[in-house]
């Protein structure tokens, strides 16, 4: 229904705009007074951190693109030119390169936070699935971005990863040729990767918008994993969480700054400072660290198609996780067995990361297979069964009354039930 919005804002300009396009009211509702559980710990910072990180990536990326040349004979030199001739170009590039690592650090912590506190469970299934889509988009973006400086790892990484699609029966080879735009990774590949690397972050922005829209329908989960019962359980987002997120952002920026200013090549492979050469295969082709667990899963299956399926399967299980976990209790705090198995999963994933960084020889093969096995067992067998067997600890009655049988309710705690948001 059309009609002007009745705005409560006093400032005449704000009011004028808000009457016609109530963005101020929306911000006020979604970020100002938005009722947020009051018991968040600092793990709830990481969504906001990811958001800040994405903005940094887009900002630095746009300026890099102004000086970058997507051509096989010029890309490597153009990156060096950015480092040397563009004002603060070294800062742009180091911030963008390390920003990608920071983005994955932050997002992986964000995801494990969700796993620990059961944030994927009803009613947040769709929110979680949008998160997995975000993860996939991030991976695609990072992968194509890594190809752009056209170093040896760019080239050979792109070759190995795109070649995975050749495992698809019958049409595999045609798909690879189609992806490459030719018969090997070459100028057409570089060009399309640049185009897509510029495009995907904006697709990310769109999906993240949906992710947050969904979050604001269900409301946030919290460390206890129980629903918000009354206004007593919540605080307005502003100023409580704006300031708490600001603390997290400051700490995050310190870590980021240490990397950019003092260890800018900490995460990067030395080989990528050698210009791509299709005739020389590097001794070791290792993807960026954030892909290593998946790379390890890929390599722990002797069959190519099998490996590729398992690798994509590792993410597919996350997609259906809300239906795999049968326990009605969200937070691991109240799930004595799940709490342990969560850490086993963390160890398995770290082990996979280490396996991915080593040549598949000797003990690494065994460790890789065991960790892969556990990864899938965890999601496909343990979680469905555990939910039925495990006896959860007694849940608190509400967030503001954390322990059952705890002290008397504070005055006013029985006030009106939470408004529907």
């Amino acid at each position, binding site marked *: 229904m059309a009609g002007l919005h009745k705005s409560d804002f006093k400032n005449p300009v704000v009011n004028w705009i808000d009457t016609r396009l109530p963005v101020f009211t929306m911000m006020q509702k979604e970020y100002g007074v938005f009722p947020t559980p*009051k*018991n968040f710990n600092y793990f709830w910072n990481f969504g906001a951190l990811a958001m800040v990180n994405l903005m940094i990536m887009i900002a630095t990326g746009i300026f890099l693109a102004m000086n970058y040349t997507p051509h096989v004979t010029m890309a490597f030199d153009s990156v*060096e*030119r950015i*480092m*040397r001739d563009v004002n603060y170009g*070294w*800062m742009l590039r*180091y911030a963008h390169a390390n920003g990608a690592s920071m983005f*994955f*650090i932050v997002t*992986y*912590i964000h995801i*494990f936070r969700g796993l620990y506190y059961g944030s994927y469970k009803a009613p947040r299934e769709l929110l979680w699935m949008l998160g997995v889509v975000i993860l996939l988009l991030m991976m695609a973006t990072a992968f194509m971005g890594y190809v752009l400086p056209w170093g040896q790892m760019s080239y050979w990484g792109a070759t190995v990863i795109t070649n995975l699609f050749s495992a698809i029966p019958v049409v595999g080879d045609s798909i690879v040729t189609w992806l490459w735009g030719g018969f090997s990774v070459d100028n057409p590949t570089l060009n399309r990767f640049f185009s897509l690397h510029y495009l995907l972050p904006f697709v990310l922005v769109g999906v993240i918008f949906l992710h947050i829209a969904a979050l604001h329908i269900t409301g946030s989960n919290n460390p206890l994993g129980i629903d918000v019962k009354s206004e007593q359980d919540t*605080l307005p987002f502003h*100023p*409580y969480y704006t*300031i*708490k997120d*600001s*603390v997290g952002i*400051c*700490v995050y*920026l*310190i*870590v980021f*700054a*240490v990397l*950019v*200013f*003092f260890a*800018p*090549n*900490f*995460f990067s*492979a*030395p*080989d990528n*400072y*050698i210009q791509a050469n299709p005739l020389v295969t590097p*001794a*070791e082709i*290792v*993807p*960026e*660290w*954030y892909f*290593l*667990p998946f790379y390890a899963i890929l390599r722990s299956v002797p069959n190519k198609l099998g490996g590729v399926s398992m690798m994509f399967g590792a993410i597919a299980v996350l997609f259906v996780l809300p239906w795999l976990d049968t326990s009605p209790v969200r937070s691991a705090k109240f799930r004595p067995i799940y709490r342990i198995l969560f850490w086993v999963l963390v160890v398995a*994933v*770290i082990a996979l*990361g*280490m396996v*991915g*960084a*080593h*040549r598949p020889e000797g003990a690494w093969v065994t460790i890789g297979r065991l960790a892969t096995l556990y990864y899938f067992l965890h999601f496909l067998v343990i979680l469905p069964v555990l939910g039925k067997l495990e006896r959860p600890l007694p849940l608190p009655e509400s967030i*503001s009354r*954390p322990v059952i049988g705890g002290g008397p309710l*504070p005055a006013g705690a029985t006030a009106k039930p939470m408004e529907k948001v």
Partner: protein
Amino acid sequence: MRILRFAAVAALVGAFALPAMAADEVIELPHQKWSFDGVFGTYDRAAAQRGFQVYKEVCSACHSMKEGYYRDLKGIGLDEKQIAAIAASVTIPIIGDDGQPAERPGLPADHFHSPFPNDNAARAANNGALPPDLSVMEKARVGGPDYIYALLTGFADPPAGFKMSDGMYYNKVFPGHQIKMPKPLSDGQVTYADGTPASTEQMAHDVATFLTYVANPEMEQRKRLGVKAILFLVLLTGVTYAVKRKVWANVHH
């Protein structure tokens, strides 16, 4: 070292996965003392200038360094006159106004002159091996300056029984121990303008300092800015945290 780095990331990020480093046959690279190490490290100007002399008199006969400019030499303490003279000592091929190939003297804004017009010429003159460009060599090898130093001082006679191929030279740290670069430095190879005795180790150390500078000309500015940025952020974190405490003071858990 590797383990330490693993531990550092783990501590830093709650450990998810690890920097991509592999290589199973680990060759020890003894860590040298570098003026540019550490948070406040800067380039030792005298060492870098000596290193430039080694590069100019020895390495540049075979290796290009095409990402760097003559004007970059300002960063190791040479003045504009010196730089102009160094640049002018090379000739740059151009197409003249009459459309015919011609030459002009180099300018400070020119890239370091490459010894060969193209890769094939470089290979032809080097027994089939391409001397790699040195612009970012320091960043392109595990160990950085320590590797360059160890490589240049690592030439030796092959151990008994080691089978050498034709036209190869034994080197302790080069992967596979056979390199197509002839031992470039021997004691007294250059005569340093500042009188420093030119031992192989001294020259290797100096040229590694210079190559680190060429690969990271922004390093000093980067670290200076980094110290300021981090001090500011630490302060900001403190203030923000104090405000947070104040805002949350009235919330009962």
